[in-house]
């Protein structure tokens, strides 16, 4: 028999019969469409990949093939190509997949993890293969605590909130000062004198009404650190002094909370991620606390306005990877940014077996 030169266009009812008689089903839609629902026995091969991958997916050119897309346009093109390239038994579903489903055709759809409003708001993130609906759900369920609603806390909170981190806790007992506004973009000129956590809540809920903003109007101390961090999944450290950083580190190690560390000084920034018992902690990196004169805060030393923006967004990026469980974090690496020369560099940091917080002598 000479090879076929034509393919058939079939209705949904005919397609159901072909499927029942064992025809192989080829879905030429895109991965994201497949993810939203598909025929369970179908094989995904997006139209653009048909020429390069068909020989691997369907090696036998006499295999009866039922090709479908969403409404029949792409399957038509795929079928024409298949016939021209030696496939002899091809049928293209000319109807919509909705017809297939209406007639009782087999269908598998993922559980709806997001509401229609969430799907619209977060659509650009849901499109990313490493996120999808499941990843966005994780972000919405996540609770992130920001120590400080100031320079570093501002960009972190804005982007975490916009991206759909469900709960953002803010620890800060300060009020908005005019000199904050050059870099603390959470706040506003008409809120000078207002509590920073309240100002932050107004901004964050203006951007995303769905964000649950929890205000902790207190200063982190030995007496409250354990209570403050206990309910959160990830802690973002943007404090301005060593006492608080060591205090936070020790409590976070004890409660096994990852801490995203950021610090800034004039034109320089440093960012790293501490994951207790998996990587080093702050005490592994700096076992001894420096004297206060080596740690001038921004109000003494000065800081370039964009510096906390850059460092804070690098911190926010770490938060996403930790929550989504993808990529490589900065655990074990200290990233340094020099705004004057626009240079990034990094050094390795190791877990110290003798570390008083997370070393061999500590209770794990």
């Amino acid at each position: 028999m000479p090879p076929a030169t034509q393919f058939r266009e079939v209705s949904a009812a005919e397609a159901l019969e072909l499927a029942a008689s064992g025809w192989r089903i080829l879905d030429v839609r895109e991965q994201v469409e497949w993810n939203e629902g598909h025929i369970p026995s179908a094989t995904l091969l997006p139209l653009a990949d048909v020429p390069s991958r068909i020989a691997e997916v369907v090696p036998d050119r006499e295999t009866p093939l039922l090709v479908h897309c969403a409404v029949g346009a792409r399957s038509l093109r795929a079928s024409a190509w298949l016939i021209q390239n030696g496939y002899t038994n091809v049928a293209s579903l000319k109807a919509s997949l909705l017809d297939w489903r209406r007639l009782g055709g087999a269908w598998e759809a993922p559980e709806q993890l997001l509401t229609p409003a969430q799907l619209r708001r977060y659509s650009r993130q849901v499109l990313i293969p490493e996120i999808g609906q499941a990843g966005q759900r994780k972000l919405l369920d996540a609770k992130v605590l920001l120590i400080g609603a100031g320079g570093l806390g501002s960009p972190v909170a804005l982007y975490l909130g916009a991206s759909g981190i469900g709960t953002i806790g803010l620890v800060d007992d300060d009020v908005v000062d005019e000199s904050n506004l050059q870099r603390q973009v959470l706040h506003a000129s008409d809120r000078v004198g207002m509590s920073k956590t309240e100002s932050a809540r107004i901004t964050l809920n203006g951007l995303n009404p769905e964000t649950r903003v929890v205000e902790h109007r207190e200063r982190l101390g030995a007496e409250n650190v354990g209570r403050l961090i206990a309910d959160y999944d990830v802690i973002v450290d943007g404090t301005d002094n060593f006492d608080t950083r060591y205090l936070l580190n020790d409590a976070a190690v004890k409660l096994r909370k990852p801490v995203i560390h950021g610090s800034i000084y004039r034109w320089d920034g440093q960012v790293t991620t501490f994951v207790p018992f998996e990587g080093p902690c702050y005490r592994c990196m700096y076992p001894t606390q420096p004297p206060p004169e080596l740690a001038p805060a921004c109000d003494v030393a000065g800081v370039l306005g964009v510096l906390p923006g850059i460092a804070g967004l690098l911190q926010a990026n770490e938060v996403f990877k930790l929550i989504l469980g993808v990529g490589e974090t900065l655990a074990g690496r200290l990233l340094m940014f020099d705004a004057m020369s626009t240079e990034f560099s990094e050094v390795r940091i190791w877990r110290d077996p003798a570390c008083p917080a997370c070393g061999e002598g500590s209770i794990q």
Partner: protein
Amino acid sequence: MSTVRIPPVLRESVGGSRSLAAQGTTVDEVLADLFANYPALRDRVSQDGQLSPFVNVYVNEGDVRYRDGLGTAVGPDDTVILLPAMAGGAR
């Protein structure tokens, strides 16, 4: 000559330089050469003639604590990084 990177909090002790060239084949020798030229830097990062424990020293990307300490070898193309903790953040 190896290169020594000076962190921002210590730059005032060396006239504002971001990096300096120094001679020596070990971290100890490199720092001694540096301190001879910049006594203010030595005062800033030393205690009782020893390098203060709150200053981390790296040769390229490696912490000398996990190599040979101040005896860690330094080649002419290596970069020594002095890195005290930085605290600035929120306020």
